């Protein structure tokens, strides 16, 4: 069953990534536990949120670069884990892939699309409302598409060699170390 409330929460808080406020409500360390609570996976939500927070510590929106979308990644991983009986490592990989894919197929085109309003005479508040609504709908549509594909992902996962499935469990155990290394790398005072 698709967790609609969690999905729409992730889609709304996706606005905090760039468009509204940047209060870090979209960050995995906040969104993970919230979505975990909404999908009945409190502990996994907290663990996934902390892990993704560390892994995305160096995904910074500097200049014109669009980093992977942390809100969509967190939402995808927890939606998948609530709908399919998959190990956390698999959900983490799927979430990371979805976060990267979303920045390519949605964030970049949306940015291009907004250029059309540069010389428009329409009231700015109306343009703003339209752009915000588009962004939320885009995030929601992507998450719904992902949720509808989750049985396919679950079935494909079951067909993988046992070695890869074991590897995903090891990935989940090692992911915090990877996250700590990410922090060390970005905060390295010697570089």
């Amino acid at each position, binding site marked *: 069953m698709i967790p609609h409330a969690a999905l729409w929460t992730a889609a709304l808080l996706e606005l905090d990534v*760039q*468009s509204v*406020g*940047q209060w*870090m*409500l979209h*960050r995995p*360390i906040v969104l993970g*536990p919230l979505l975990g609570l909404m999908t009945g996976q409190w502990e996994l939500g*907290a663990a996934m*949120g*902390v892990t993704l*927070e*560390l*892994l*995305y*510590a160096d*995904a*910074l929106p*500097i200049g*014109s670069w669009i980093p*992977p979308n942390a809100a969509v990644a967190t939402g995808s991983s927890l939606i998948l884990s609530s709908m399919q009986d998959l190990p956390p*490592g698999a959900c*983490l*990989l799927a979430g990371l892939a979805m*976060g990267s894919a979303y920045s390519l197929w949605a964030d970049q085109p949306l*940015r291009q*699309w*907004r*250029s059309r*309003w*540069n010389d428009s005479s329409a009231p*700015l*508040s109306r*343009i*703003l409302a339209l*752009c915000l609504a588009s962004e939320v709908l885009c995030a929601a549509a992507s998450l719904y598409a992902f949720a509808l594909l989750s049985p396919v992902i679950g079935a494909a996962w079951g067909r993988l060699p046992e*070695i*890869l499935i*074991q*590897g*995903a469990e*090891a*990935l989940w*155990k*090692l*992911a*915090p*170390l*990877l*996250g*700590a*290394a*990410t*922090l*060390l*790398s*970005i*905060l390295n*005072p010697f570089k």
Partner: protein
Amino acid sequence: MKLLSVFWRSFFIQALFNAERMQNLGLRFALEGVLPRRSLEKHNTFFNIQPYMAGFVLGLALALEEEDGRDPESAQRIQSLKLSLSSALAALGDSLLWGVWRPACAAAAVGLYALGLPILAVCAFYLTLYNGLCLAVRWKGLVWGYRWRERIAEKLRQISWQGWIKKLRWGGFVLSLALALDFIVEGSLPFWISVPSVAAFFELKRRDFSALDCCLCLWLAAAAYYWMRLIAL
């Protein structure tokens, strides 16, 4: 009141971020409540800044527009001041707030989680710590930009930004090191796996591997490890 209006509207400065002129529409929206339409039209040119630092430029633009926004020479002056200030503040904001403050707050929050604090308290701590500084920068920037106008650059030079960045970077690095050590010591993996793993991932990150790339490498490495163990058995 007008500063408050610009302040709350500045939270939408990136809402209309576009590929062509970046934050031009957001800047216009922020100033829309307090400036006449004819003054806003000249602000439809390229503009890009770290969002928390936008207050400085908004305050400056507002003050100068009020002073003498109708004079064409003054309009040119406002544009050039806006551009020069925004590029300097963008670099500062990226280094300080994105590059150091956000990861350092994450390190502190995850550290508290690793120590056993409830996740709700960790989230509250993270949001309060992070937003405390960022909201202060947003508001103070607006007030100072409005108050000091062209002298804002001179005033900002008096603050030791690089010193603060260095201190915060060191503080965050020490926290991250403590976190890594905690994961190694408290984790369920033997030292001969966890220590080289941190070193390997650090190197991958140094080479700009994304989180997804690193995880894929790790997944394949772990799978290879299990394959070798199976063969050995």
